[in-house]
């Protein structure tokens, strides 16, 4: 279902604060962030929101996964954090239709900075599509001529 107007934007937000961010605060901020991204993309003309999701892995202190599929402000949460952390590593994936990738980036990056800047925290954003962390796609013989189905 990759059409010409499909866009995927992945980024990592690394947040470092001088004092631990409380679990409830982190959870609320991530929920607000996912809802805000969906709402702003919708306002900007996204024709269909596929999936907007994030995961925060705090190791033995827990994890949070938050996602939404529309702009109704009802992002759902999985997992929990057991205690506050000074360093947060959040992976965010935005998959939708109808906007240019640069437009999505222009919407998402400021929202991430706004929502993840806890008291005194520093936020570093990394466009994951530019860092080539993932496995390189491999084509095998016999499949090269298959049409693209998705």
């Amino acid at each position, binding site marked *: *279902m990759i059409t010409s107007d499909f866009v995927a934007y992945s980024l990592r937000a690394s947040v470092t604060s001088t004092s631990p961010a409380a679990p409830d605060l982190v959870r609320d901020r991530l929920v607000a962030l996912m809802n805000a991204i969906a709402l702003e993309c919708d306002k900007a003309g996204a024709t269909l929101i596929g*999936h907007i999701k994030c995961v925060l892995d705090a190791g033995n202190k827990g994890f949070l996964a938050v996602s939404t599929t529309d702009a109704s402000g009802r992002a759902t949460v999985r997992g929990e954090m057991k205690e506050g952390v000074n360093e947060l590593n959040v992976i965010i*994936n935005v998959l939708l239709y109808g906007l240019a990738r640069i437009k999505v980036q222009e919407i998402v990056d400021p929202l991430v900075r706004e929502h993840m800047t806890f008291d005194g925290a520093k936020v570093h954003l990394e466009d994951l599509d530019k860092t080539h962390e993932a496995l390189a*796609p491999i084509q095998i013989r*016999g499949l090269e001529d298959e049409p*693209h189905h998705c």
Partner: protein
Amino acid sequence: MRRMEMLIVAGFLGSGKTTLVLSTIEKIIERTGKKVVIIVNDFGTVGIDGKIMEKYGLKVAELASGCICCTLGGDLLTTVQDIEENIKPDLLVIEPTGLADPEAIVRAMDHYPGKPLERIRSAVIIDAARFPAIFKALNRPLTSQVKSADLVLINKVDAVSPEVLEAVKADLRTLDADVPIIYVSALNGTNVDEAVDAMVAS
């Protein structure tokens, strides 16, 4: 000796595939006694769905940054063979991206160099709440997903009225989807047992 089976759990982005896998996999193992391995293919460069499954105690092989029915076909075959030879599961569950055509995965498996599989089945998850919008925007690929399915699970039934559910089912029937259609809520457990029965049916 019985050969490995494959179950593809497909469905559009955000339809609830990961939630469904998480809510059914233990029941599948309990009910069948099968050794199960899951392959997750997430579209983002760093997969989120696989991380979530790991947090719930599942061992997950992850294929990130692309779609296995397109550019990652080779990775899929290599991963399946590696799993077959080293873990020897009875059932391999594949959760592709929400963009994948399960039929294309089946065709990719035609090139599988390992032992032939016992069978490949696909369950397609439909998001009851968003079906009208998705059906309108992506009619052809959604139709293709549904037509290739052995089972259709209409998910998120807790989020819509009975009338909406019936309308979704009626639309699906217009696609000649002559397969079992089950209403389910992977989130609150509605009909999950029935879905498990259908997913492992012989």
